[in-house]
């Protein structure tokens, strides 16, 4: 190993000799937790929100795509000429 990395490793060993931090008063943590619990159920929102939010967003995206496709079909084929996705893609020369 070269000198630079050796020196960095020694530096890390030296840094490990720092005095221990002073203990924190748990009251600060407990006050924050209590603050969250007062706001219950909002306190649990961050975790639930992301999971629930993601599921809702996915469902909404599917719903919007269905609506958009239905609207597209309606607009694209007022006379019923284009009736399915295969027809649409075929008409756009996407499929062989």
């Amino acid at each position: 190993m070269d000198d630079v990395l050796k020196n960095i490793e020694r530096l890390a060993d030296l840094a490990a000799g720092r005095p221990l931090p002073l203990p924190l008063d748990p009251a600060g943590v407990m006050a924050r937790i209590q603050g969250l619990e007062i706001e219950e159920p909002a306190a649990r929102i961050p975790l639930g929100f992301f999971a629930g939010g993601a599921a809702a967003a996915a469902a909404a995206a599917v719903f919007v795509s269905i609506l958009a496709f239905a609207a597209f079909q309606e607009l694209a084929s007022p006379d019923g000429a284009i009736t399915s996705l295969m027809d649409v893609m075929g008409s756009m020369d996407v499929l062989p």
Partner: protein
Amino acid sequence: MLESDEEDLVDVAAVLDGDGDAYARIVERHNVDIQRQMRNFSRDPAAVEELTQDVFVEAYLGLAKFRGDAPFRHWLARIATLTGYKHWKKRDREKAKVPLSESLEAPAREADNEGRAGEAAKILFDLLSLLPPDDRMAMTLMYLEKLGQDEIAARMGWSRVMVAVRIYRAKQKLRKLGEKEPWKGRLEWMMS
């Protein structure tokens, strides 16, 4: 299993049963270790205290997910690492938005009382802060928390290969940095 691990299991069960005092005991038991860990993520004592509190709040909110198949302190250490990682990522995004002078870490008020060890920690912190967050995390866990590659992989949820690549890449960058001033001088002065 250490005696404190058994006490943790008892206290976790008590917290889940609605005993708030049990969580204060957990905080009391682990806060020095968590602060020591969070010192690797910031040199500002106020930020270290806030990060430490963040860790315990996160742990409290996720306590029902603790399965008890590994010691509680390992579970908590992982939350601490991920909290520190989020802090760096956030700072990294902020650094991109604000002028450099405003985005620098607050000066280390503690380091003055920590002598040579504090000075070593300061140099190492400054040097590692030049790496991107992922590389910096790999090196921090390796050099400062003395974790092996498998442990880093488990702690971060990275593959073993990813850890090896990050360490290799970070070492290359550190080697280049350390061969140039001011780092060359700082490292040599420290080791003299």
